[in-house]
């Protein structure tokens, strides 16, 4: 029988079982790295650095995981905080801001088709709408879980999802069903 995330967390807490933590990393690496790749606008190297940072932080603070939310939600929250801290630091260092990032070269620009247009449209959304869309529509979190991850009120998450979705629909109108 496969162990649940809660079982593995308990093993890490009681026995400092690093193999159990390795299993947690294996289970969630794809979704955490995927979220960070989208948040960093497909900067794979930066996203993976942030994901490593997030998992290390999760290991060091695993005693603070009380099991009230899903382990993946808790991980997303740590990953999002890592992303925000890095974005703030980079903005302070080199003056990168959202508007500049939006006009940066997109490495997927050479790929034709709907996927490319969708990624481009996602990257054009403001960070708050993009984060809400990625968590709720792409990673399947409920609005309540997304509100915990983003540390914003539930109503704001709903508004951001709604606005983001409307903008995506407008930008991808040519691809939609007729």
């Amino acid at each position, binding site marked *: 029988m496969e162990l649940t995330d809660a079982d593995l967390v308990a093993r890490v807490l009681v*026995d*400092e079982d*690093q193999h159990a*933590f*390795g299993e947690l*990393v*294996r289970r969630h*690496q*794809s*979704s955490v*790295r*995927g979220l960070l*790749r*989208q948040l960093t606008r497909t900067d794979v190297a930066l996203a*993976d650095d942030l*994901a*490593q940072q997030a*998992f*290390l932080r999760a*290991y*060091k603070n695993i*005693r*603070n995981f009380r099991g009230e939310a899903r382990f993946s939600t808790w991980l997303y929250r740590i990953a999002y905080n890592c992303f925000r801290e890095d974005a703030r630091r980079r903005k302070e260092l080199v003056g990168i801001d959202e508007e500049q990032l939006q006009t940066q070269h997109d490495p997927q620009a050479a790929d034709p088709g*709907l*996927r490319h247009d*969708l*990624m481009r449209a*996602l990257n054009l959304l403001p960070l708050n709408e993009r984060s809400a*869309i990625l968590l709720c*529509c*792409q*990673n*399947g979190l409920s609005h309540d879980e997304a509100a915990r991850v983003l540390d914003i009120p539930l109503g704001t998450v709903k508004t951001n999802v709604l606005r983001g*979705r409307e903008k*995506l*629909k407008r930008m*991808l109108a040519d691809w*939609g*069903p007729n």
Partner: protein
Amino acid sequence: MNQEHWLDRELRDAAPYIDDEGFTVRVLQQLPPPRRRQDLLRAVILLGTAFLASVLTYVVSDGGRFISVTLERLAALPALWVFVLALASGLVMAAAGATAAISRSRASLT
């Protein structure tokens, strides 16, 4: 409604599974070493020192005769003094417990 489903499906498909490719190993290599070994060493040192100190005290104090002498002296003390001693000990223990609890809760917040 159809368009919303279409958009959701495309969003989900736009996040394919990312192969591990050594990511988990890299994370595990950066984990701090387990504290269990350090804790065990610390416990052995503390218990060993306490045992040695007990043996030394027993030998030096002529088989622990000082305990019966001290107990006799305590029994001879007036009731008020015994009460004051018990109260003071209680206060010291409560203060130590409160200090430990506060430092622990601060550590868990950071």
